[in-house]
């Protein structure tokens, strides 16, 4: 899989550069595959190499949160300014309990 790696029971999502509409569709498919076919129960979204996200990505994060439950999804390495801005605009920081 291109964007999702399986580590134990965790699906680790890492998208480089732009997390945009096309990648969102692929990430969703790959994550569903990891959850349904490979036994993953938790999700980690690593933004270390991500520089941009659009609204489709924000919607995906909420969908994934519903799939595994709010206790089982974590976001890490959020440091790119466009991502922080997009998160704040959609109040994702409040929903995911992030300090940005």
């Amino acid at each position, binding site marked *: *899989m291109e964007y999702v790696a399986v580590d134990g029971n965790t699906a680790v999502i890492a998208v480089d550069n*732009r997390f*945009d*509409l*096309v990648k969102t*569709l*692929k990430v969703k*498919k*790959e994550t*569903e*595959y990891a959850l*349904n*076919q490979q036994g993953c129960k938790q999700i980690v979204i690593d933004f270390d190499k991500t520089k*941009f996200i*659009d*609204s*489709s990505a924000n*919607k995906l994060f*909420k*969908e994934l949160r*519903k799939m595994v439950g709010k206790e089982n999804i974590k976001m890490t390495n959020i440091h790119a300014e466009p991502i922080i801005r997009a998160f*704040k*605009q*959609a*109040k994702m920081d*409040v*929903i995911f309990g992030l300090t940005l």
Partner: protein
Amino acid sequence: MSDTLKKERILLVDRCPRKILEWLKIWLVQYDISIHTAANGIQALVKYNKYAPSLVLICAELPDMSGMTLSSIIKDSQTGKKTIIYLYDLKEIMQNTKADFFFNATTEEKFEDALHAQIVNFYNVRFMQNNHSLEIMRAISKQYEKLPKAYENQYFSVTPVFSAYGDLSGDSYDYWEDEAGNLYGLLFDCTGHDFLSFSQVNSMRTLLKRDMHLYELSVYQSLNEVLETVNSDLFAVDQDPENPVAIVFKLDIEHGIFEYSTAGIPGIIVKKRGEEEGQVMDAASFMLGDLEDAAFETFRINLADVEEITVCSDGLYELTYNKNVVEESKIAKHDDVSAIIMQVKDELSWIAKLNAGTFPGKQSNMLGAWEKISNPQPEL
């Protein structure tokens, strides 16, 4: 008809099919589709006749014959016209090549993006139509029946835009005038664009329209109250509701102002007279269904010097304001697109100018006058 022929099948013809096979398995995991492979043209013809696939993916470079030749042979066969063929890795096109989709030789990443967009859309539509053809046709017809038409009066014109991603859209909108000529409206975007979305669209329209009529009757004092009520109703029905995004608005003729409240939609674009491009009104807000007691805000714009206001779903917003991202993605349109474009005539602009002295809004860099008229803090 035997079971062999009824089952949905793909035939992938490529001397090295492993990579594309892996993509297809991931993309189509939710569908019951068998994927067969053939390494050359002759093997492909045998398997095509045996399995009658609805979709055939053919690499242009095959060991025994050109992929274009194979594609044309299949297309000219008795069942060929019902078979969709994607030809890829094309460096040139031979005369009389027959296929439905052509992909030039390109980088693996670009090809994957383009193929993914085509395949997913193909099967979403196909499965939806196969499973619910009559219901779908009715739903498509109904979705258009519900939409208001373009119109104009002496103060403004309204032009709607509605373009579903597939046959059904997760977006919708509505607007109407009251007796005084004020325009009330709503636009929203539900998750997805399928039969399930159609049902959500109808529920959302009912909720939003009911509460907007109550606002029109002054039962609710503000537009944010409308969204807060709808949000609360969503949680009353389902503890874990979907996340539709919505905007409600009023174009107030008497005072020359535009008021709006948003839940997750970024698309309010305001264009001033004499300017070439509109400016996006930036506002942070929750989506509906995020938090049960989420608070929303109402904003007010004085219409003096405003020429056009566009209210749109993110489908249009991102196609226009993230143009470079769209161009990189190589997908022309990725989502439902819906918008209400309101063009303000001089007469309304003058009313707004006359009222500007009494307009209580703060001065802003973006517009002549712009004001947030409610500022509640979300309760967590």
